[in-house]
């Protein structure tokens, strides 16, 4: 039985973070980084449901993130409604996208599925970049000044931080429950071997599709939270391939298919990204690509299971060496 103090300490630290940094000179900057971190953890955790647990590596999740960011701002643009009211609609749009992409492409497996999702995401990005209603290449904006609390416009990052943290807690609680349910077992079985899963009565296509829809809806929430905070979205920040890649890298770095993997990945990657952006200026996106590439190389070569798997292995090797093949003797 592993002690639960790890997660408790983690959540306590996340809850106290804005208080702890409030004494610092650069509190505003640190709050901003913290909010970005939590937001990235939400996106990666949402991706993790289908990309991690079910092992279906979608590189098209930017579509769902973009749905969340665009639709919430669009309801303001069109009807001057608070962006928050666009959230349910954004989730519906994302789920519809998930069905439209998943139904044909889940018949493909492995790399072919990933490639299909990249293609669709780039297609959607091109359409959005040329659609006047969605602001073409410039993007769209939310309300400039708050008309009430419901516009969710705050000068400080701290309220966003706590809103995002609550959403993250919700997403992880949902994942935790899923892990222990029939659905969660079926997803892991599909990742481990579709043919064997099918032979045990797992409805593979339906299960993958449901995971994709759930993941899409939660990713749309991440996109919506992004637009609440920034009040602005353009094709690059909303549907750019980097949006999808970041979710994958973060989840894989921490440990895809584990509850805390995405959060741990975000805890490492986002501060690293912020630091490089600060040192080399905001135009550090080229450097971001280099960092991502380096992480992919290291993970693929040394630890495909991510940091959590590394931790488990090192822990297991130190504390209890399981005897390989001992089970066969029985």
């Amino acid at each position, binding site marked *: 039985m592993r002690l639960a103090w790890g997660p408790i300490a983690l959540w306590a630290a996340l809850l106290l973070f804005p208080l702890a940094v409030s004494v610092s000179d650069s509190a505003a900057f640190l709050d901003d980084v913290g909010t970005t971190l939590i937001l990235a953890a939400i996106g990666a955790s949402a991706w993790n449901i289908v990309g991690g647990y079910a092992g279906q590596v979608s590189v098209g999740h930017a579509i769902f993130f973009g749905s969340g960011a665009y639709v919430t701002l669009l309801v303001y643009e069109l009807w001057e409604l608070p962006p928050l009211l666009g959230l349910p609609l954004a989730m519906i749009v994302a789920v519809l996208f998930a069905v439209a992409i998943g139904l044909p492409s889940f018949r493909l497996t492995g790399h072919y599925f990933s490639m299909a999702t990249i293609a669709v995401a780039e297609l959607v990005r091109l359409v959005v970049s040329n659609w006047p209603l969605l602001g073409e290449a410039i993007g769209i904006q939310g309300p400039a000044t708050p008309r009430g609390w419901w516009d969710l416009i705050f000068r400080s990052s701290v309220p966003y931080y706590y809103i995002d943290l609550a959403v993250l807690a919700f997403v992880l609680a949902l994942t935790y429950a899923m892990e222990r349910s029939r659905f969660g077992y079926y997803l892991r079985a599909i990742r481990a071997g579709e043919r064997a899963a099918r032979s045990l009565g797992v409805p593979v296509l339906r299960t993958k599709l449901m995971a994709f829809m759930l993941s899409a809806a939660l990713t749309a929430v991440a996109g919506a939270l992004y637009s609440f905070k920034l009040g602005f979205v353009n094709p690059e920040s909303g549907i750019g391939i980097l949006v999808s890649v970041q979710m994958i890298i973060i989840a894989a770095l921490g440990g895809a298919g584990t509850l805390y993997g995405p959060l741990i990945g975000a805890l490492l990657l986002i501060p690293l990204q912020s630091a490089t952006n600060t040192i080399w200026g905001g135009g550090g996106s080229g450097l971001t690509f280099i960092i991502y590439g380096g992480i992919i190389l290291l993970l693929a070569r040394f630890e495909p299971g991510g940091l959590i798997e590394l931790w488990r292995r090192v822990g297991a090797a130190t504390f209890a060496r399981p005897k390989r093949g001992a089970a*066969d003797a029985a």
Partner: protein
Amino acid sequence: MLLEAESVSRAFGGFLALSEATLGVERGEIVGLIGPNGAGKSTFFNCIAGDLPPTGGRIVFDGVDVTAAPAEEHARRGIGRTFQVPATFEDMTILENVMVGAFLRHHRTRDAHAKAMEVLRLTGLEAQAQQRARSLGTPGRKRLEIARVMATEPKLLLLDEALAGLTPSEIQRAIELVRRIHATGMTIVIVEHIMEVILTLAERVLVFNQGRTIAQGKPQDVVNDPKVIEAYLGHHHRRRRARKAEP
């Protein structure tokens, strides 16, 4: 009759891997499918398991036509199968592997857990429940596959070379397990090319050669059938056996 396969054929492009195989299995029977490599027994097996839709003929299970049904439908109807090359879920524990099977009939986690533990006791894997499947060797994996499919509570158990690659003592233990499962009233169809196994287990065998069934009957009778000896050992051995039998 639990399973009725009628003139089942399967072609891969222009190659007829299986031609008009017919098999009826009664409840509680153990039937062996034997034959040399490439004889079509695995193709036939995969047709029954729903992994490979037949290109001709029909398969009726428990009164329902399942010829064109997908593999998961076969599992739901009560046809459970193991794989020739074990397809265990490597990163999951042995208990979790078996729970995936148990979830078919028990939707709540607690019930699936209880069912899985019951099967682990039956198959003697209880002590390793918390180990990952990847820690097992071939005999353990084959045993785990049997446990996993037993957790789906099948009416018909299809074993695909469940004993291949095992040492004689492991084979003995595996045979004991199959016997124990059979004793619970399970109907079993087993593909095997180790003759010894079939002789001790099956009540009836179907012999395949070059995509066709060439003999059917009690194991003792079948092994003395000249056609079977020829298929397995070639002309030379048939002549030798015949010479030996003469004096």
